[in-house]
C-alpha cells in the first residue's frame, strides 16, 4: 500500500529508493498527461523525466493541501504547456478554437473493426483536439481525477471543465456515429 506521507518524508531525508518508488507509482499518470498533450513522441520520455526532477526539487514545499497525485499532475500539465508554448510554430491549438468545427485528419475509419482499433482511432482523434479539451478528457478518463481535482490541476473553473468534457465527448461521439453508419451500409 503506497503511503504518501511516509514516502514523501523518506524522500526529504534523502532516501532515494523511496523516490524511485514514487516515480514508479506515478509514471503512468505523468505519461498519460504528457503523451496526450505533447504531439512529438520523441520528447515524451524526456519531458516525463523533467517532471519528476521538478517534483523532487519542489517536494519540500508540498504541504499535503491536495493529494500527491493532484500536485504531480499539475506539475506535469504545466511542464507540457511550457513545452508546447516553446515549440509551437503555428498556434493551431487555442482555447477559443471552435471544437465543433474542428477538422480531423485521420485514416479511413472503415478499416477499424474491433474495440482495440476503435480505441486507437479515438486516441488519434483526441490528439487533434485543442489542448484544453485533450487535457480534461485525459485527466478524467485515463487518470480518473474528479471534476474538482481537474479544476485544481488546470486552474479552470469546475463548470468550464465539465463543459469542455461534455463538448469533447460530443464531438468524438459524432465521429464514431459516422463510422458506425458507414459500417451498417
Amino acid at each position, binding site marked *: 500500500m503506497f503511503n504518501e506521507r511516509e514516502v514523501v518524508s523518506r524522500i526529504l531525508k534523502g532516501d532515494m529508493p523511496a523516490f524511485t518508488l514514487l516515480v514508479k507509482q506515478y509514471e503512468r499518470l505523468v505519461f498519460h498527461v504528457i503523451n496526450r498533450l505533447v504531439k512529438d513522441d520523441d520528447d515524451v520520455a524526456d519531458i516525463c523525466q523533467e517532471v519528476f*526532477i521538478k517534483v523532487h526539487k519542489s517536494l519540500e514545499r508540498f504541504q499535503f493541501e491536495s493529494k500527491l497525485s493532484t500536485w504531480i499532475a499539475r506539475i506535469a500539465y504545466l511542464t507540457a504547456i511550457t513545452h508546447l508554448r516553446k515549440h509551437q510554430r503555428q498556434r493551431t491549438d487555442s482555447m477559443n478554437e471552435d471544437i465543433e468545427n474542428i477538422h480531423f485528419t485521420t485514416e479511413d475509419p472503415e478499416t477499424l473493426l474491433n474495440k482495440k482499433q476503435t480505441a486507437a482511432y479515438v486516441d488519434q482523434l483526441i490528439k487533434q483536439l485543442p489542448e484544453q479539451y485533450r487535457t480534461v478528457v485525459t485527466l478524467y478518463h*485515463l487518470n480518473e481525477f474528479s471534476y474538482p481535482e481537474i479544476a485544481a490541476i488546470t486552474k479552470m473553473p469546475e463548470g468550464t471543465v465539465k463543459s469542455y468534457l461534455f463538448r469533447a465527448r460530443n464531438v468524438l461521439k459524432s465521429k464514431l*456515429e459516422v463510422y458506425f*453508419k458507414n459500417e451498417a451500409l
Partner: protein
Amino acid sequence: MKKMTDEELQQWLENNPPLTQSELTDEETRAYSALFEALNEEPDGGLPFDFAANVTRHVQAEAKRGSELKRYLMNAFWFLLASSAAVALIGLRSHDSTNLLLQNKWIIGFCIIGFCVIQGLDEKLTLSRLFKK
C-alpha cells in the same frame, strides 16, 4: 432505455457500468457507449522499463554535483585564506620573499584557477559519459 439527451447519456455512462448489447437501442447510444469504453482504455506505448531508475540516477548525480561544488568552493576559500596567511607571515619575516610572491601573483592565481577549471571539466566529462545512451 428511454431516449436521453446527450448530457443525460453522458452522465448516465459516467455513473453506470457499460451498456449491454440489448441496451444499445440507437446509433447515438451505441456511439457513446463505444466512446466511453475507448476513452477508458489506456493507449499503447509507455515509458521505458528502467525509467524510474534513470530518473533516480539523474537526481542523485545532480545532488552530488551540487554538494561537490560547495566542497570545491569551501576548499578554494580555505586555500586562499591559508595562502594569504602564509604570504603575510613571509612578509613579516622578509620583504624580498613577499615582493617575489607579489610579482608572480598572476602566475600563481592562474595556476589555482586553471587547476579548479580542469577539476570541473573532468567532473563534467565523467558525468556526461555516465549518462551517455
